[in-house]
């Protein structure tokens, strides 16, 4: 959003209507803010009522300029208050309050009440559906998600929300147990819908949303044991991202696609294609830990152990916060690949110690458990 949304000239009129704050969750100084306002995915956009610090509106994920304009208008109205209107509005206001509080199960019920009462041209329909689907995903209610996504798709087709809903439906269908009798139909339905959304050149979705959907489509082909189809989809994904990066007018805008491109190249089995791009980003952004951290991953896949280790050295010298632990995990894999079991264990122990030392708000128990598990699976003697 920083590269493609917040700089849009049309947002200038909003500048004086809010106080604007950005919070980098990797910084230890922001740990208390994270403790107070936990999030479930990056980025998350919040509109707070400054009187009581209530979250009046929560939006999970990125947004196009048009979507952000609506989020801002709704957020402002939610803070200014006033009696909710008629029809779906009282239920929607209740859902928004619960979603803001992260009471996702109750919020999902309220959003469904709002949708039942909504007229066909209700302008909040797309946002209500997207927030409802996220609330259901967080509540692990895949069955309801699939029903809502199927119902919503005809109405949202051709919009950024339609692309997002197709992807959510596909992820949910793929998450169903293999024994579920409805799984093949659901996967097929949402894979087709996702393909149609990707192919719709008029659909003004954010490039990273399209990119994520390509990732889901690769997963669907792999799920179908269609290795050639997965590779072909990954090739389309890489070509799309290379096209977007070529259009970028600044190194910043180009580097936004680095992580996505690396993922596509890894799926293609061609990590070497990421190296020139990441080396360029490392030159352009010498203080950023991301390019060398990603080079570490690419060199690891290529089994170029010395270059991989050197890249993680450079990344660790600049990294801070929880991401540092991820880089240490990569480094441990590299050492193990090189045959240095003792070094791999020592690096895992360092990662565990760093994970435990994170302050509340940044500390992640699942991450600690996964590092412990990795360490436990790596005995001192082979």
């Amino acid at each position, binding site marked *: *959003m*920083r*590269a493609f949304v*917040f*700089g*849009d000239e049309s*947002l200038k009129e909003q*500048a004086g*209507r*809010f*106080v*604007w*704050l*950005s*919070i*980098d*969750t*990797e*910084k230890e100084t*922001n740990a*208390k*803010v*994270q403790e107070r*306002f936990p*999030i479930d995915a*990056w*980025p998350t*956009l*919040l*509109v*707070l*009522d*400054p*009187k009581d610090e209530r979250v*009046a509106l929560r939006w999970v994920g990125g947004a196009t300029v048009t979507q952000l304009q609506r989020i*801002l208008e709704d*957020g*402002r109205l939610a803070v200014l208050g006033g009696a909710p209107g008629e029809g779906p509005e009282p239920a929607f206001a209740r859902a928004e309050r619960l979603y803001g509080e992260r009471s996702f199960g109750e919020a999902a019920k309220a959003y469904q009440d709002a949708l039942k009462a909504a007229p066909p041209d209700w302008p909040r329909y797309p946002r209500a559906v997207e927030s409802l689907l996220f609330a259901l995903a967080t509540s692990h209610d895949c069955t309801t998600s699939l029903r809502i996504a199927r119902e919503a798709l005809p109405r949202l087709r051709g919009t950024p929300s339609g692309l997002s809903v197709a992807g959510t439906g596909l992820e949910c269908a793929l998450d169903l147990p293999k024994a579920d009798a409805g799984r093949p139909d659901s996967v097929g339905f949402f894979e087709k819908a996702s393909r149609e959304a990707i192919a719709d050149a008029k659909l003004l979705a954010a490039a*990273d949303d399209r*990119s994520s959907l390509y*990732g889901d489509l*690769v997963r669907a082909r*792999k799920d179908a044991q269609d290795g050639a189809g997965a590779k072909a989809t990954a090739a389309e994904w890489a070509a799309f991202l290379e096209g977007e990066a070529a259009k970028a007018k*600044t190194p*910043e805008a180009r*580097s*936004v696609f*680095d*992580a996505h491109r*690396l*993922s596509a190249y*890894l*799926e293609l089995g061609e990590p070497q294609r990421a190296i020139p791009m990441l080396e360029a*980003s490392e030159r352009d*952004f010498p203080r*950023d830990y*991301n390019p060398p951290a*990603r080079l570490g*991953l690419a060199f690891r896949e290529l089994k170029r152990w010395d270059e991989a280790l050197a890249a993680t050295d450079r990344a660790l010298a600049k990294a801070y916060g929880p*991401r540092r632990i991820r880089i240490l995990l990569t480094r441990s894999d590299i050492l193990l690949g090189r045959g240095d079991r003792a070094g791999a264990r020592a690096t895992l122990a360092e990662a565990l110690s760093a994970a435990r030392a994170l302050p509340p708000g940044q500390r992640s128990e699942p991450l600690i458990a996964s590092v412990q598990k990795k360490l436990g699976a790596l005995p001192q003697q082979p």
Partner: protein
Amino acid sequence: MDLTAMAVLILALAPAPKSTLPFIEDDYSRGLAEARARNLPLFIEVWAPW
């Protein structure tokens, strides 16, 4: 770790801040105090640089 899981870990957006909006960086107390003083809603972008 399979490639899809790894892709989930590394899929994210990187640096590039050029905003037409006057963002306060990483200072919640200041943002809240300013919002109270100006009687405006506080918009927060919660993000990570990876």
